């Protein structure tokens, strides 16, 4: 269901600093590569088990090159646990034909569906984890801008990411204040304190926004942030970044031709 994933780590807390090829690659190339990679994975027929093995090897390879510790990768994979729970039910609920596995009658289409969700979901999440682990948030935003996302969106995202830590900190302080007054909600009708906290949080966020805007306007802000270090991708970087999605697309095409 999402949520709750920001608890302790701030936005840049996800970054694993390093100077590998993957870290140095321009963000716009990494985002484009990620998009093509996950699209290829999703479009691969689920019966082509070998293709998913190739994708997994590619992901592990990139993680090794990027020096992302496998343990960290596995720990962050927990985000998909709710959907894995859903996937586990499919073989039990699915339609016939049914097969016997260790004495339990399981649905064959359900097993394929569960495999499909687990394999594609895990590959997609792993690829995103590697992107977030190797790209500072500021670069990620610049990358999105260089991919020609509408400026209003990247500007909203920029403010959001910069102030997330502040607002989350505010929310955590309010939560500690509630708890230290003995707030321990069990039922819905005890949510009133939470809601008035949310109202206060909105007013405080909004007023902070007003102050931030005034401060920026008085320092010469006129709608866009100056680009401090412009990163134009070199030809070599483009080729290197294209390797992963190209490989994925060819595996996907091959999987359709030879299932």
């Amino acid at each position, binding site marked *: 269901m999402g*949520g709750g994933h920001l608890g302790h780590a701030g936005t840049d807390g996800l970054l694993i600093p390093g100077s590998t090829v993957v870290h140095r690659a321009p963000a716009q190339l990494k985002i484009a590569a990620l998009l093509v990679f996950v699209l290829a994975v999703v*479009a691969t027929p689920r019966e082509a088990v070998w293709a998913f093995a190739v994708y997994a090897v590619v992901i592990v390879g990139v993680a090794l090159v990027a020096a992302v510790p496998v343990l960290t990768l596995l720990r962050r994979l927990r*985000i998909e646990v709710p959907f894995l729970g859903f996937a586990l039910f499919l073989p039990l609920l699915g*339609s016939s034909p049914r097969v016997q596995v260790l004495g339990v009658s399981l649905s064959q289409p359900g097993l394929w569906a569960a495999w499909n969700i687990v394999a594609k979901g895990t590959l*997609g999440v792993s690829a*995103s984890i590697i992107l977030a682990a190797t790209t500072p948030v500021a670069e990620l935003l610049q990358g999105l801008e260089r991919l020609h996302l509408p400026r209003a*969106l990247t500007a909203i995202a920029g403010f959001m990411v910069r102030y997330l830590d502040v*607002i989350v900190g505010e929310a955590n302080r309010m939560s500690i204040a509630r708890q230290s007054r003995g707030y321990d909600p069990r039922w819905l009708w005890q949510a009133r304190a939470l809601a008035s906290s949310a*109202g206060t949080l909105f007013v405080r966020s909004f007023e902070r926004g007003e102050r931030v805007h005034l401060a920026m306007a008085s320092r010469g802000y006129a709608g866009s942030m100056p680009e401090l270090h412009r990163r134009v991708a070199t030809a070599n970087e483009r080729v290197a970044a294209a390797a992963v999605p190209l490989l994925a697309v060819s595996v996907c095409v091959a999987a359709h031709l030879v299932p």
Partner: protein
Amino acid sequence: MHIPDGFIDAPTSAAAGAVAVGGVAICLKKAADQLDEKRVALAGLTAAFIFAVQMLNFPVASGTSGHLLGGVLAAVLVGPYIGALCVTVVLSVQCLLFADGGLSALGLNVVNMALVTAFGGYVIFLLLRKLLPRTVGGVVASSGIASALGVVLASLVFTIEYAIGGTGGASIATVGGAMVGVHVLIGIGEGVITGLTVSAVLASRPDLVHGARDLYERAPGGSPALVGDAA
């Protein structure tokens, strides 16, 4: 409700992506005259607020909990167009940074949680405003009911998407029943919290509630324009 990669097949995901791009483009166009450099900072802070609010897990019944989606809340507070943009930004950042929701499913997630809740929910809100008395209580009740229905609406749209391109072997009735059932419960929580949040904001800064502008247009002394006077 953050759909991961591979849950819905590629053609359906791509179609939803096209719908999401179109919807967001309309929002950008409609919000353009409001989104000057002043409003962009405020929209960004609103997005950060929605992000933080999604972390508030509220109790649904003993033991289980749900968290706010915030689409209707954002639409009532800053208007449906900017509200939908804020939720879209939240979902995109969650997807890229936290791997919450697949990148190939981002279109689906934007349609369900940003466009359907912000617009579907806001239409319900406007209808209720017409039916209920023109008072603070009327605004609070409308936003609460609209956000509860908005969550259920989002789960219905998910069920339709699942029916078109779901990869699960389970029948549509099973999935739809479970999804809508769970989201009726979440919707009740969302409705209560949204209503109470709107009433808390109305109590301290009524000028910040877009959906209640008509109540405060002639407020003595205070201009309905939000920006600059409180800083």
